[in-house]
C-alpha cells in the first residue's frame, strides 16, 4: 500500500463519517458539523494528491486547501447564522420539524 492510498482511505472514512452524521442527525448544528467533516476530508485529499503528485514544489494543493478552508469558514458562519435565525422564529433547531417548504 502506497502512502497515498493510506491517506485516501483515511479521507474516505472521514467523508463517510461526515455523511452519516449529516444524514442521520436531527440537530441542525450536528448536521453542520458533519458537513464540516466532509469538507475536511476533501481538504485531506487535496493535500495528499499535491504531496504525492507530479509537482510537489508548486504549492498548488496547499493554495487550494487554504481557499477551501476559507470558504468552509464562511459557510459555517452563514450556516450558524441561519440556525440562529431559525431558532429565533421556530424556537427549535430540529430539522424534521422544519418542513414548511414541502411541495
Amino acid at each position, binding site marked *: 500500500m502506497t502512502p497515498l492510498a493510506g491517506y485516501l482511505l483515511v479521507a474516505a472514512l472521514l467523508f463517510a463519517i461526515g*455523511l452519516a452524521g*449529516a*444524514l442521520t442527525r436531527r440537530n441542525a448544528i450536528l*448536521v453542520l458539523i458533519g458537513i464540516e467533516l466532509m469538507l475536511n476530508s476533501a481538504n485531506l485529499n487535496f493535500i495528499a494528491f499535491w504531496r504525492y503528485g507530479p509537482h510537489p514544489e508548486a504549492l498548488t494543493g496547499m493554495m487550494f486547501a487554504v481557499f477551501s478552508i476559507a470558504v468552509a469558514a464562511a459557510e459555517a458562519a452563514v450556516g450558524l447564522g441561519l440556525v440562529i435565525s431559525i431558532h429565533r422564529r421556530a424556537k427549535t433547531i430540529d*430539522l*424534521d420539524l*422544519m*418542513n*414548511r*417548504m*414541502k*411541495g
Partner: protein
Amino acid sequence: MQETISFTPLAAPSAIAQLLWLIPAVPIVASGVIALLKQPRRKTAATLSIGSLSVSLLLALAAFIHVVGEWAHGDTIRETVNFTWLQFGATNVDLGWVLDPLSAIMLVMVTFVGLLIFIYSTGYMAHDENFTRFFCFLSLFAGAMLGVVISNSLLLLFMCWELVGLTSYLLIGFWYQKPSAAAAAKKAFLTTRVGDVFFLLGIVWLFAQTGTLLFYNGGAGSIETGALTTLLTQHAGLGLTAAGAIGLLIFAGAAGKSGQLPLHVWLPDAMEGPTPVSALIHAATMVAAGVYLIARVYPLMQAGALAGGTTTALTIVTWVGASTAVFAALIAVAQNDIKRILAYSTVSQLGYMMAGLGMGGVAVGMFHLITHAFFKALLFMGAGSVIHGCHEEQDVRRMGGLRADMPLTFLTYAIGMLALCGFPLFFSGFWSKDGILEAAQHWSVAKAPFYMLVFGALLTTFYMTRQVGYVFFGYWRGKKPAHESPAVMTVPLAILAFFAMALGLIGTPAWPWFKAFLSGSSITFDLHGFAEPGLLALMAISAVVVFLGLGIGWFLYGGNAPKPEEPDVLKKALPLPWRWLRDKFYIDELYGATVIAFYGWWARVADWLDRKVWGGLVSAVALGFRGLAHFNRFLDTNWVDGSFDKGCEELSTGGGLLARIQTGRVQTYLRLLSLAFVVLVAILIWSTRP
C-alpha cells in the same frame, strides 16, 4: 410666423403697415390670458381687456395718421403685407393685411367705439357673476373684428368673419341660463351660417378663377384689373358675369351678417344679449362687417359697369338694401321693447348703407356706416342706461318721464335720436343719409329706391319720436322709481354724443373730406358744393320729412303716451296693420312653417330611415355575427377546450408527482444528493472499466 414672409416687391411697406397685425393680435392675446384667469379676478380681466384695446386704438390712430399724412403729400397709399400660408404643388394660398384709407378709418372707428363700450361694460356688468368671461369674449370679438378689417385676403377675412360669428354666438348667449337667450344665440349662429355657405362658395369660385384670394398684390390680386378682366370674360348665366355672380355670393354672406332681407331674423332676437353687446356687435361693428365686406370687394361688384352705369350685382344690392330699410322701419313702429326698436332700426339703417353702396359707391355707404356706428352705439348704450336705471325693465310702456330722473342719459339719447333721424345741419346722420338720398336721386336704373328711402326716413323719425315720447316724456308708469346711471356709463355716452354731432362735419357737400379721403383725391373747402342742382331741394325735402315725422310722433305720443294696459294709439286707429307690424310680418312664423318645418320633416324621415332601414341592416349584420359566434363557441367547448383541459390535467398530475419529492426536509434532499452521487461514481467506475 416663419421666414416665408414675402413682401410685395413694389415698395417696402412702412413700419406701421408691417406692425398692423398687432392691432387684432393684442386683444386676442389678452382674451387668451383672461380665459386663464379665475372668476373672481374681475379687475385684472377688465384692465387687460381695456388696456389691450387701448393699445390697439393707439396703433390704429398711428396707422390712420400715417395714411392721412401720405394723402396730404398727394399719394394714395395702399400698403400690403402678404405671406404664404399654405403651399401645395404649384398653388399658394396667401394671407396678408392691407393698410389703406378704408381699413384705416374702420380701424379707428372699431377700436374707439369698442373702447368706449368696454369702459361702459365695466359699469353695466358690474354685478354680473361672470364678469371675467364677459371680458374674455369681448376682447376676442374685438380682435376678430379688427382682423376682418385689416385682412388683405378673402380667406383670412373669412376666418376672422367666422370668429366674429362665434363670439357673437357666445355673447348673445352670454346669459345662457335664459332659454330665450340660448335660442337667440343659436338662431343668430344658424341664420348667419346660411349666408356664410354662399360666401364660402363665392370664395372657392373666386379662387378657382383667379388662383389667389389676396385682394391687392401689386396687380396680381383677385380684385385688381388683371383678375377682373378674366372674370368679366366668363358668363355665369342670368346676364351675370363671373365677377357679378361671385360678388352676389359674397353679398349673401354680407346679408347674413348685416341682417339684410331675408336673413334679418336673427338680429332683433340677438337683443337677448347684454346691452353692451348689442351696442358693440349689433350696432357698431359686427353688423357693419357685412357692409365693410361689400365696400372691400367693391371692384368685383362694379366690374363691367358702363360709364356712369351700374351692374346687375349692384342693382340687386340696392334693391335688397332699400327693401330692408323700409321693411325693418315699418316693423320698428310697432315694437314695445326698447332694444327691439333699436334692433329693427339697425336693420333698417344697414339697409340704407347697402343701398348707399349699391347706388353711390364706397364712400356714401361707408360714411353712413361710420356715423351710424357712433350714434347707434350711443343709442344702445343710452338704452342700456335706461334699462339699468329702470331695474332691468325693457318695455317702453312701463317707463315714462325719465327726462327728469335721468337728465344726462336723456340729453345724450336725444342727440343720438336726432342723429338717427337725420335732423338737419347739426347732426351727422343728416349728412350721411343725405348722401345716400342724393345718390338714389341720381340713380339711373329706377326712382323707386329714392322714394322708399325717403319713406323709410319718415318712419325712422316717427318710431324714434314714439320711443322717446314713451321713455322720456309723459309720467312715470313703472313701479320702483328710476335712477341715473354711474359716471362710468354716462361719460362714454357723452363722448359718443359729441361724435354723433361732430362727425357730420367731415362729410358735408361743402367739404367732403370723407369721400376725398377714401378715393384719394384732393380736397378744398368750397361752399359751391351746395350749389349742385337739386341738392338744396333734396336737403329741404329731407328736412321736411324729419319735421313731419317728429310732428306726427309728437302729436300721437308726446306727453300723453297710453298706460301699459291701454292699447297703443295706432292700434286703436289701425288695428289690422298694427298687428301685422307688431308680429314682424310673420316672417318668423313663415320660416317656422317652411324652412324649419321642412327640416323637422326631414329629420323625422332621417330618423325613420335610421331606425327602420339602416337600423334593420345593422341588426341583420349583428344577427349574422351572433350566429358565427355561437358556432365558434360550439367549437370551443367541444374541441378546443377538451384537449386543452386534458393537457392541463396531465401537467397537474405530473406536478403532483414531482411535489412528493419536495418534502421540505433538507436531510431528504441531502440523502437524494448522496444517492445520486453514489450512482454517478458507480457509473464513472463502470464506464472506465477496461
